[in-house]
């Protein structure tokens, strides 16, 4: 027996948190952009350095997996398990199972005419967060 209708689930557990992330993004970035200091490029530079070393970390982990027989065996087991159960995990193109089912119903809910105000509210927060993110990152290039 379903514990909740899927429309209720995607509204409360998927769309509302994503909308909150947009609000947090512009809520944090807009004050920073308004009070930018001369060392803003340092801030962006450091964040990109973290990303660079994160890439290096993943590269090393994958490298070790490729060369070590035990780790490779474990990776292969994971891949085979995923492959055998892919419909129950990330789902299929019809969106009838797994994560695709949730993503498809999020799209349906976003597209639902009776929830128009909700969808527009999300769209406004999305463009506002996008606007803030573009300015936040590109201001550093202006200052270089």
């Amino acid at each position, binding site marked *: 027996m379903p514990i909740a209708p899927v429309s209720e689930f995607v509204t409360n557990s998927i769309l509302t948190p994503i909308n909150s992330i947009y609000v947090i993004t512009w809520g944090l970035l807009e004050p920073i952009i308004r009070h930018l200091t*001369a*060392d803003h490029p340092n801030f962006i530079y450091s964040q990109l350095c973290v990303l660079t070393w994160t890439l290096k970390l993943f*590269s090393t982990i*994958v490298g070790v997996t490729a*060369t070590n027989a035990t780790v490779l065996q474990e990776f292969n087991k994971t891949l085979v398990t995923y492959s055998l159960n892919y419909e129950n995990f990330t789902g299929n193109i019809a969106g009838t199972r797994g994560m695709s089912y949730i993503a498809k119903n999020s799209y349906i809910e976003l*597209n639902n005419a009776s929830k128009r105000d909700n969808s527009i509210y999300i769209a406004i927060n999305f463009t506002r967060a*996008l606007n803030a993110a*573009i300015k936040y990152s*590109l201001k550093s290039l202006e200052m270089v």
Partner: protein
Amino acid sequence: MIVCTVVVNAIDLAVMHVQMLQNLFELMINSSLLLTNPAINPADIWNVGYSASSFGYWVAKSFIGNGGTIDWARQNATAMAYFSNATNYLGINATRIFGDTEGSRGMSAVLKNMTMQLNESFAISFMRSLNESVKLAYKLLSTVNVTMG
């Protein structure tokens, strides 16, 4: 109060971007080496790829599909005002952000300095990532008819 006196310049950003690209190439090389290992069955890669792409399709549809976020934004004046504000910012500051033909400002200055930072090790990583990617593509595509029937 801590006052930051040293501000990074285009050369610092260029060195960091070259390093980031090289790390990305190394990640591609190692991923390809891992997936081309004889112990890995190409059918498993196809299954996982298909399923992950299906999920990606529905996520992308929520953004760019008919009735998705961007479609709703297009129909709303407030959302479009934020979007216009972003494009307006890029337009007004184009030279400061993207730079000029001299490579003296913005992104052009970073790219100009990146060109000066390139070395043999970078070129080897780039060509090796291409080589290993081709081997992986060959492994996957040579079995596509058997896998998909």
